[in-house]
């Protein structure tokens, strides 16, 4: 039993149509509920809900304050490798892109850390392309152990792994894993992911099951916004979240909503245009559906937008991100995507304080993962 079985009970087109059929009355009903269900969530995602964006934002902000208070987690991505065997048509790291490839060795990682540690970061998100020969489980384990002394929370955004690999990395005090499905539209998935391990839709879809089974403490879900209808994607993401919460109740969950941006190489334009108003509706809808899920926003979005949406439901921000291996210590030519918020971490922290938020750099203690023998 995995999520795939549950997933196959639903038809993309039917779900999409039912979202688009939702009426203002159904949106109001959803807004009046303390515990909106997946049908209510359709209403909150629907075009009809656009007219209710302000009340949605107010409810979302209030729920977020009650659950998370006036704090904001800050983290930084560290790109370890841009080697990739996949050929995802939207990605700067695609194996077919003629860019220089690099995997950081220990010395190069420590050079990155020296720069990073000039900022107060204690949570690092380690990122690689998918190239197990270059950056596989053994490499990741080695990097986790190397970075442990300097950081309190280490997370991964790398290729999907097997349960045993996750168990092994959890023992190296891996805290969270983010694996985005990119799209839940199974029929369209192959055209975006034509080659490599990532072409296997089902293996990717079942990754959170393997993470839950391995006892990983936090699991991140998300889709790439700009491929297929974002409302339908969000509904399937929520379906996935609900399934995981019931099954792997000891894990925490995080949602991300990366929007496609220009990248080096032949140009892939987003298939579906999603504006900032849509993205805001998505954020608020997620919060109203799930008061406890973490919502993370990256530097793909521009400063004014990030500042505006901070109080509405977001609980984690990256800041000062560089998106290529070696980029913090000066190598800027290998980036996966261009960031739109180039402010330094300190500037972002200052913005948060001005808005009455305490920037939280440390929110995990590795010793809490350490069992003792009774």
């Amino acid at each position, binding site marked *: 039993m995995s999520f795939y079985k549950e997933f196959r009970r639903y038809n993309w087109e039917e779900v999409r149509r039912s979202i688009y059929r939702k009426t203002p009355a159904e949106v109001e009903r959803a807004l009046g509920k303390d515990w909106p269900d997946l049908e209510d969530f359709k209403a909150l995602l629907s075009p009809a809900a656009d007219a209710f964006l302000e009340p949605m934002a107010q409810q979302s902000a209030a729920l977020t304050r009650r659950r998370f208070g006036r*704090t904001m987690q800050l983290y930084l991505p560290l790109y370890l490798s841009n080697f990739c065997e996949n050929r995802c048509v939207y990605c700067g790291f695609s194996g077919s892109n003629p860019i220089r490839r690099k995997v950081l060795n220990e010395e190069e990682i420590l050079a990155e850390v020296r720069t990073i540690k000039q900022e107060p970061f204690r949570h690092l998100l380690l990122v690689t392309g998918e190239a197990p020969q270059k950056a596989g489980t053994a490499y990741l384990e080695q990097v986790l152990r190397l970075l442990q002394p300097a950081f309190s929370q280490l997370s991964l955004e790398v290729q999907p792994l097997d349960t045993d690999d996750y168990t092994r990395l959890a023992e190296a005090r891996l805290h969270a894993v983010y694996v985005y499905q990119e799209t839940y539209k199974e029929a369209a998935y192959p055209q975006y992911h034509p080659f490599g391990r990532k072409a296997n839709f089902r293996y990717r879809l079942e990754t959170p099951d393997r993470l839950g089974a391995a006892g990983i403490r936090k699991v991140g879900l998300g889709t790439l916004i700009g491929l297929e209808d974002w409302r339908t994607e969000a509904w399937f993401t929520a379906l996935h979240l609900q399934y995981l*919460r019931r099954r792997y109740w000891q894990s925490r969950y995080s949602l991300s909503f990366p929007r496609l941006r220009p990248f080096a190489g032949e140009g892939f334009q987003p298939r579906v245009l999603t504006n900032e108003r849509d993205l805001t509706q998505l954020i608020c809808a997620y919060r109203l559906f799930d008061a*406890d899920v973490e919502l993370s926003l990256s530097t793909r979005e521009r400063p004014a937008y990030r500042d505006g949406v901070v109080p509405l439901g977001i609980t984690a921000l990256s800041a000062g991100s560089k998106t290529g291996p070696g980029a913090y210590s000066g190598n800027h030519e290998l980036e996966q995507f261009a960031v739109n918020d180039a402010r330094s971490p300190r500037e972002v922290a200052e913005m948060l304080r001005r808005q*009455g938020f*305490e920037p939280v750099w*440390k929110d*995990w*203690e590795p010793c809490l993962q350490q*069992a003792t023998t009774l």
Partner: protein
Amino acid sequence: MEKLTVAGTSFESRLFTGTGKFSSNLQMAEAIAASGSQLVTVALKRVELDGRQDDLLAQIGTTGARLLPNTSGVRTAEEAIFAARLAREALQTSWIKLEIHPDARYLLPDAAETLKATEVLAREGFVVLPYIHADPVLCKRLEEAGAAAVMPLGAPIGSNGGLQTRDFLRIIIEQSNVPVVVDAGIGAPSQAAEAMEMGADAVLVNTAIAAAARPLQMALAFKLAVEAGRLAYEGGLAPRHSGASATSPLTAFLSPV
């Protein structure tokens, strides 16, 4: 007002506070000061344990309140025990608030693991304050295991739901030989006062203060409510009557006047 004594340490204030969710560490310290609280809990995961500069700890230090580290984030007794031992070394206190909630969403405490960890830590000389369900039998078991106090929940953490467990709290208070601190769910000063009127020895409040529009003012409101509730309890509340009757139709036969 009677002083509260926990593990030989006496407290003037019966309001314990948390340190999460504030808009700044400075505001947190000011709110703690306004609340008069002398025992504040802080999540181990939020502070530096290796001695490096930590603004959160520094600000708590300015309040003069006793530090009560908590184990929020652990899922088993084994993890909690390891964390408690580390906290004792790092923070120089043997006081520990046990929070073992494997449930990642509602942060509900695991009774079996909490009891197990309490037994071990109490034996090792820790002052153990376990956060647990409002389960009267469990509270007695924890007391026997050496807990310095019990901290039953009023409602889920952060819910501001009030004393949803009222009937069970009443039994726990009636039966307990250690202080009873109502923890979690108290969302308004009136609810804190209600817990104190029932005879709770103290309450722990965090979200209701931190997430208030004006946290300092709310901290003061809770201070006054806790004092009022305690004074009312000590003063002996007059019994509530639904309507007294001058005639005694059922007992009139006893006294032929």
